[in-house]
């Protein structure tokens, strides 16, 4: 099913789309992006309780719905389309996947039911101030103290890290380097010694935090020193989900560009009748559809346990980064002057495209990674 959605998946998509059209119009996006918290608790409640979206890819034994990455990808594609302001990507995509891939059965039992129910919002603190997206960039240390650990270091660019109830942290055994000695830990958001700073983000719909750990007591998640593998899978799944989120946003931008061109009259005719705009719109559609193909294919591959997943994740992310940004640039251009104003909605997606281009690694990083995986 890598090339086609099932009827059930199509139906699911339209339910999510209707929900988001209702709950996340741009008026709501504009209101929430100005707040520090960055989301509407009532919409979050409805999203988790009424639609069960936070439970989607969590197995039923942990209180989830037991669907796959394909359904998760459909959800985030629709959220990217609607530019939903919510800690969904942080909690359901990043932190949940890390817990699923790294945690012991007891830890999953303890953590996941509340995350699935939306009662706990989790975040994944992985990147540091060096902005590296690979395991080698982790410098935060975890020092054993009896049964527990003490975390020291600074995490940055942590998605929704300022509001999360639980933070999944990647840290290393003192003295270890690269992929060795890495472990996952969990920390409460209000833990002593944890200082959380909400960073000013260019894309106001995506909240990032800097978390300073000064001797913060932490629980080990999974096996000590064995986080490199689960972390890589988590980041691959996240890159695939981000690619899907991005193609959702790109498609929405493209539609808005065509709609505007059809409406806008200059020289006595709709500007959509000019061949320069028709050809640009056709090229934009091609970019978006090509990127969609990679995003959908990679999501389906994740469900099928494809061993080429790391390559497919990087491929999908690189394709989506280029397509989203190009679409955003062209959409501003097609709108002309009004496209550069704050009042016009295009910049909201433009900024999401820009932050997504970089988040989890830019396209040059993912292209190089793809070449290495393919042993070129």
């Amino acid at each position, binding site marked *: 099913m890598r090339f*086609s959605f099932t009827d059930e998946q199509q139906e699911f998509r339209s339910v999510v789309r209707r929900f988001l059209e209702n709950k996340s119009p741009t008026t709501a996006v504009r209101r929430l992006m100005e707040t520090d918290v960055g989301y509407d608790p009532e919409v979050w409640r409805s999203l988790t309780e009424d639609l069960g979206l936070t439970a989607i890819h969590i197995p039923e034994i942990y209180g989830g719905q037991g669907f796959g990455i394909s359904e998760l990808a459909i959800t985030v594609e629709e959220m990217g389309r609607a530019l939903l302001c919510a800690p969904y990507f942080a909690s359901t995509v990043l932190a949940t996947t890390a817990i699923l891939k790294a945690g012991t059965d007891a830890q999953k039992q303890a953590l996941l039911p509340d995350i699935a129910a939306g009662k706990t919002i989790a975040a994944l603190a992985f990147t540091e101030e060096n902005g590296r997206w690979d395991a080698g960039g982790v410098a935060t240390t975890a020092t054993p103290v009896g049964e527990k650990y003490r975390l020291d270091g600074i995490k940055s660019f942590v998605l929704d890290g300022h509001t999360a109830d639980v933070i999944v942290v990647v840290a290393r055994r003192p003295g270890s380097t690269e992929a060795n000695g890495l472990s996952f830990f969990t920390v409460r958001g209000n833990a002593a010694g944890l200082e959380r700073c909400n960073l000013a983000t260019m894309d106001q719909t995506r909240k990032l935090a800097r978390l300073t750990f000064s001797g913060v007591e932490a629980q080990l998640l999974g096996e000590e020193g064995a986080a490199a593998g689960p972390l890589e899978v988590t980041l691959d799944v996240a890159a695939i989900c981000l690619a899907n989120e991005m193609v959702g946003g790109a498609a929405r931008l493209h539609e808005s560009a065509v709609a505007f061109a059809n409406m806008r009259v200059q020289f006595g005719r709709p500007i959509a009748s000019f061949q320069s*705009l028709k050809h640009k719109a056709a090229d934009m559609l091609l970019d978006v559809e090509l990127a969609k*193909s990679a995003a959908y294919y990679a999501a389906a591959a994740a469900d099928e346990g494809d061993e080429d997943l790391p390559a497919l994740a990087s491929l999908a992310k*690189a*394709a989506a980064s280029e397509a989203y940004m190009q679409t955003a640039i062209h959409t501003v251009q097609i709108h002309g002057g009004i496209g550069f104003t704050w009042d016009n909605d295009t910049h909201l997606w433009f900024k999401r495209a820009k932050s997504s281009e970089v988040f989890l690694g830019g396209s040059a990083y993912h292209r*190089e990674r*793809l070449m290495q995986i393919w042993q070129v």
Partner: protein
Amino acid sequence: MTEMTVETVRAEVRAWLKQNWDPNLGLVEWRNKLIESGWGAPHWPKVWYGRDLPDGMLPIVEEEFERISAVGVAKMGIRTLAAATILAHGTDLHKQKFLRRILTGEDTWCQLFSEPGSGSDLAGAMTKAERRGNRWVINGQKVWTTSAHRADYGLLLARTNVDLPKHKGLAYFILDMRQPGVEVVPLRQMNGHASFNQVFFTDAEVAPEFLVEDDGDGWKIATTTLMHERRGADAMRRYIKPSERPERVYREEAREIAIDLEPYKWYPQRAGRVDLVIARAKETGRNRDPVVRQEIAKLMIMARCSEWTARRARAAHQYGRPQGPEGSLGKLASSYVARAANQVHTLISGADAMLTGKNSPMNGVIAEILVSTPAISIAGGTDEIQKNIIAERVLKMPKEPRFDTDRPFRDVPKNVLPK
């Protein structure tokens, strides 16, 4: 009659093949047997060599043929477009005279649509057909005609009336290519090959019964041919593997394939040969250059995305879903992939990209890529026409303003052709 299901169709074709398949027959002899049985063209009507099988069941029949390596009817080239057009618009006389020999491969066909003055704008054809006594007399010139030099018949779009608007004054003929008024001259392309021809008509003749439908219906019928051309582009590639088996039918088929494919031998290079890129980068050591690595990755990503987009379009078709935008993008995507591949091959080959033939990498294959990819964004509908189609049909943007359809063809501005 029992109901037709996947199982009954499979059982039936399998039983028939078991009874009749004989690789020691001559190719035409075998195909005649196959045609009589209806398994050669099972999606055709029962009265005309078929079995009225739904298109969706064709793959089952094909699988059974492939399973025992049985040879099918002739499927390559313009002959399948001729057959589809004749089935849709031809008279019983046409069907009687042409269909069987199309399937046996005894007759070769060509398509006489494009002209020097009308490429993207096929309805602007100026080749003239005049009724003189009991004959249609043809004068003018066609171009880009594959296989014209060995064709028995041509599908001809010609102008019969310049006082009508351009689409109304056209007629569609089946023209006998083997007559004195038809001269075929090879057309050499920028890559040195001559895969196409120019065809000149000087008082060439067509008997009235080989006008297809009525005078004035030419554009409608040409549209049928073109629709099958677009649909068939995918199907054609599946039949291009000649067998190396020694039996007579395989030897004769291999000969046929070699002749039919001769004009297309550079087509893989036209598409950019993405398959060669990684091996070439490694053997030249250019894979160590980070800039080259980035360009290779960009190309591979685009090529994969394009392939998966085509698969999405096919899957939607298979599941009977309405075609999404992905179905209209394949040709444009191929152009961009080919163009990018050309650049990457140049980057990898460096100074060697200045050479050709034996002196150039891979005995000239790389050089052939570099001078063949421009064809892909022109042939079968230019990128510009593709983009208009996408913008107008998929995105519902306004149609191009036209100044040529609302007046007699004689008043429409035309190209001045060099003498």
